[in-house]
């Protein structure tokens, strides 16, 4: 539905974005690939040169490597499950007739505006701290021993913090989708004798499928890179209990100053990200009329 000249114009106008993103993607990646085959420690800049795949073997042989992969998956999946399930429930609740829907919506959306370091620091110090935190106070009140969240269950605690940040996002998208469902459809189902649970299962949930797709896609993109929250709360520990892949690479690069191994880790992370991306785009790209 267009002319040759408009197609040419379109290509021209598309090119800045494409070229910039290509540079943004390829240049650092190429450098990372190069570093990943080099002996390159920031502490010993004189030791240089090609060292085959030693960086890769070293990175993969790191005891924390397997843990980091599993932790990354648990973090992403954990947050996704919590936010989608709770998001649906809260959206259903807010969609009911009630007084003060506007203020409720504002309160629910608020955690989304909080920058990650702030969220992490608030939770770490004022809630999860085993001596002064509010959770410890609550435990004391109930006569229970205080629980050291970040020490005893670091990954679960981080999942809780991140889920708190992303729950508003899931809730609001799902709420918007629910509100676009015509009440006629539901009334028709009601006339057909479908009880509430079946109405939810057969009418609301399929209607929400597309928005759940959006939630999963967008959140995965952001969750794969979760970093600040871990840095501020547990620093990946204790041990490697809350070390994710990005954090492991960060440790190699900035704590051990081993840029070569970090680059190898970066390549591994890029490969994994691409696998996830291809999987995601395949699985749900169809669901988006993009």
């Amino acid at each position, binding site marked *: 539905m267009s002319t040759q000249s408009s197609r040419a114009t379109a290509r021209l106008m598309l090119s800045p974005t494409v070229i910039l993103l290509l540079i943004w993607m390829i240049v650092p990646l190429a450098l990372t690939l190069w570093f990943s085959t080099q002996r390159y420690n920031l502490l010993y800049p004189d030791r240089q040169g090609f060292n085959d795949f030693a960086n890769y073997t070293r990175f993969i042989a790191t005891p924390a490597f397997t843990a980091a992969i599993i932790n990354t998956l648990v973090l992403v999946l954990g947050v996704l499950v919590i936010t989608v399930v709770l998001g649906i429930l809260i959206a259903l609740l807010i969609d009911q007739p009630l007084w003060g829907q506007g203020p409720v919506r504002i309160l629910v959306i608020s955690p989304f505006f*909080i920058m990650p370091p702030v969220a992490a620091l608030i939770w770490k110090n004022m809630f999860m701290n085993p001596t002064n935190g509010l959770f410890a106070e609550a435990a004391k009140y109930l006569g229970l021993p205080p629980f050291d969240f970040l020490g005893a269950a670091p990954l679960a605690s981080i999942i809780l913090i991140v889920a708190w940040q992303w729950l508003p996002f899931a809730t609001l998208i799902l709420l918007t989708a629910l509100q676009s469902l015509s009440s006629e459809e539901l009334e028709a189902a009601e006339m057909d004798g479908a009880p509430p649970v079946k109405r939810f299962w057969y009418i609301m949930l399929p209607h929400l499928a597309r928005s759940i797709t959006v939630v999963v896609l967008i959140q995965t993109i952001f969750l794969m890179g979760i970093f600040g929250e871990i840095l501020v709360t547990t620093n990946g520990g204790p041990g490697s209990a809350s070390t994710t892949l990005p954090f492991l690479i960060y440790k190699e690069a900035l704590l051990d100053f081993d840029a070569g191994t970090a680059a190898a880790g970066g390549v591994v992370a890029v490969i994994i990200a691409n696998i996830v991306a291809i999987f995601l785009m395949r699985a749900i790209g169809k669901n988006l009329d993009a």
Partner: protein
Amino acid sequence: MARAVTTRRKIINTVAAWSVALILFFPILWTILTSFKPEAQAVSSPPVFLAFDWTLQNYIDVNEQRNYLKFFWNSVIIAVGSTLLGLVIAIPAAWSMAFVPGKRTKDLLMWMLSTKMMPAVGVLVPIYLIFKSLGLLDTRVGLVVVLTLMNLPIIVWMLYTYFKEIPGEILEAARMDGANLRAEILYVLTPMAVPGIASTVLLNIILAWNESFWTLNLTVTDAAPLTKFISSFSSPQGLFYAKLSAASTMAIAPILIMGWFSQKQLVRGLTFGAVK
């Protein structure tokens, strides 16, 4: 769904919804309250909710230790700058994909989005070195560039979905009316897409304001935004909950207030235009 329900049912709904909302909001509320407490009362056991000695001392202290305004302006410049720069690059791209779609448009869009999946930490060292050699480390220009590139795919995608809602016939009408491409985008497309563009701008300002990988790793002092400001509180320093709260409140207040006022447009933006 405007369906008639009993008052009793509505009361139950209201109580339940407000409870959930307050639980979700509580950490923020608690932080704001704590920021007005004297340090000793901030950790008192049992905790005090409202009956404490209200004070502004924490804000004064934090400001004396660290120059809040400098961080604040850096955040504003970086967030607004990267969003506007992104918009200028993205509007023509979104126009192309929305109104002159090709067979590969969808793939292209997905590819753009997939660049966001690249783990930032994986390319930290090269970017750091490039920035160092270009003298961009700890500069606002450098951060604006990085955040623009980071958020460009999202801006393009959002604008694309908004543009697609605009009927192509209207742009064709403009062409028939003698408008060249510049006039078509400036006088017809952009004004029609204002709500969508506003949502895009809002969401991206928030994303850029809260971005805390590159802003932490590529700045030292000169260009340091509020993420850096707050991170300096990450190691405990004696009694510091009240000061931490004051600093947190200062870091989040601007975006929180902006978010509250623009809630309507934002919710539309939050859905990335993908949910009608």
